[in-house]
């Protein structure tokens, strides 16, 4: 009995030891972070200031995101991926939900929307009970943790053409795109997140992460409007296995793909209605 306990302790210790470098990939000093106290955000008609968000951040955000914005808040250790993704490490300046191309910083609007929207299937709630002014200040606060917001400019948001009318042809064309760029490798041929590569997915810090299941009624991570879905696969979700498809899907085709993805989802949509009459078969996993 004693030896077995012993073994468990050793195992736990080893696990803790190896998990350490994952979470503490970057560690800035308090002075370094404080040197960016003059960071501003310009969003929702307000100019956000770091100092004006200090109270809200310390009261509402610090539990997960930590004093230093390094995702080492007290609660973070109990968030176990893939069920509960780890909080974002703001020091790294890498963000999932952007309107900008992969490898670039998000705009103030992107961060504002992320705070407003929250993240479905995570511990990050919707924060729309904050006033817009409070949220603008929090955007400045989030930015001041990362030196990247001083040395780099946000990327240029991708341009999204106006949404066309959903037609049966477009849904069928979207199915072709789904097959061609092989979304099913992770998301599965029926969008059920059971593709051949789904089980081994890891995020940039080495934690397991699940592909999005289109069929279970939850919302996509970065918003559930048609434009949000368009943006997700054209910009990629940085820090996760989801790549950008901007080089391989033309803007018009991208809308087709959005309509096809809609047919998987439980949320009512015109695309779903039309799909009922089309009797589409799932794409083949062995082309």
């Amino acid at each position, binding site marked *: 009995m004693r030896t077995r306990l012993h073994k468990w302790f050793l195992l736990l210790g080893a696990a803790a030891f190896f998990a350490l470098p994952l979470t503490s*990939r*970057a560690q800035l000093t308090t002075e370094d972070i404080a040197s960016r106290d003059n960071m501003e955000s310009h969003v929702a008609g307000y100019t956000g200031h770091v100092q004006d968000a200090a109270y809200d951040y310390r009261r509402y955000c610090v539990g997960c995101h930590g004093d230093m914005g390094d995702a080492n808040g007290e609660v973070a250790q109990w968030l176990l991926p893939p069920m509960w993704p780890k909080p974002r490490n703001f*020091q*790294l*300046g*890498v963000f999932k939900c952007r309107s900008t191309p*992969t*490898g*670039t910083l998000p705009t103030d609007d992107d961060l504002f929307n992320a705070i407003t929207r929250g993240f479905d299937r995570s511990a990050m709630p919707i924060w729309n009970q904050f006033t817009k002014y409070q949220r603008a200040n929090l955007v400045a606060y989030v930015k001041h943790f990362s*030196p*990247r917001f001083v040395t*780099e400019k946000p990327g240029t948001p991708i341009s999204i053409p106006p949404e066309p009318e959903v037609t049966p042809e477009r849904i069928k064309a979207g199915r072709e795109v789904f097959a*061609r*760029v*092989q979304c099913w*490798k*992770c998301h599965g041929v029926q969008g059920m997140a059971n593709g*051949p*590569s789904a089980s*081994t*997915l*890891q995020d*940039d810090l080495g934690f397991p992460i699940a592909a999005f299941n289109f069929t279970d009624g939850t919302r996509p991570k970065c918003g559930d409007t048609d434009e949000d879905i368009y943006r997700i696969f054209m910009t*990629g979700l*940085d820090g*996760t*296995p*989801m*790549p*950008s*498809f*901007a*080089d*391989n899907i033309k803007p018009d085709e991208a809308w087709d793909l959005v309509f096809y993805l809609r047919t998987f989802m439980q949320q009512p949509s015109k695309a779903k209605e039309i799909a009922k009459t089309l009797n589409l078969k799932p794409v083949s996993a*062995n*082309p």
Partner: protein
Amino acid sequence: MKRQRNFVALVSTIVLLCCGALLLNQKVSAAGEGKITGNVKFEGAPPHMRGIDMSKDPWCVKANADHPQHLENVVVATNGGLENVVLYIDGWSGDATVEKTVPVFDQKNCMYTPHILGLDVNQTFKVTTSDQTAHNIHPLPNPMINVGWNQSQPPGAPPIEKSWKNPEVIPVQCNIHPWMHGYFVVVKGPVAVTDDSGNYTIENVPPGTYTVKAWHEPDTTQTAKVTVSAGGSATANFSFNK
């Protein structure tokens, strides 16, 4: 009068010396650049490299049907040469981005070819795919040093051109095929990677005395001092045991 003449002589000597120094200096950087060559050996019995189970993707299995792939952490040639060792000059203080070629990092038969790409800071490289299955190319730099990205390359995708701003060993992976793993080794100055018999040549090295650094994954390094003469070739051999 005499003192004045002395002064003029002194000044002209200094000016001449300075000109000479400048000329010499110019000569140093413009003179025929030399190279550093050598061989990297692996000492002892090479470790067993596990075979790769590609059953996740039938296309990959088919592509490698007559040539099963193995892990590439330690690739030793029959003559004992060690492949995939990166050689560069420690503390390079010469010109920025001396490597002007555009190397290609290809995704072929669900493996990275080459396994390791040695790159100068800001040197452009191309990521291509030769496969009829989708890949995503996902380098994982430390975001405090370099900026990462993640792009998809389905069959027939156009090449991606990129470069890295700062020296760093950057692992690169494909999330669709988790066995696909390689490195971009970004250094300052000229760089070479050993070929399949452990040989290497660092080109574009101006005359001078240097410390050559040899890097083998995951993070073993060795150094050697060499002196390169104008247009000449210096030799530095290494041997690794892990």
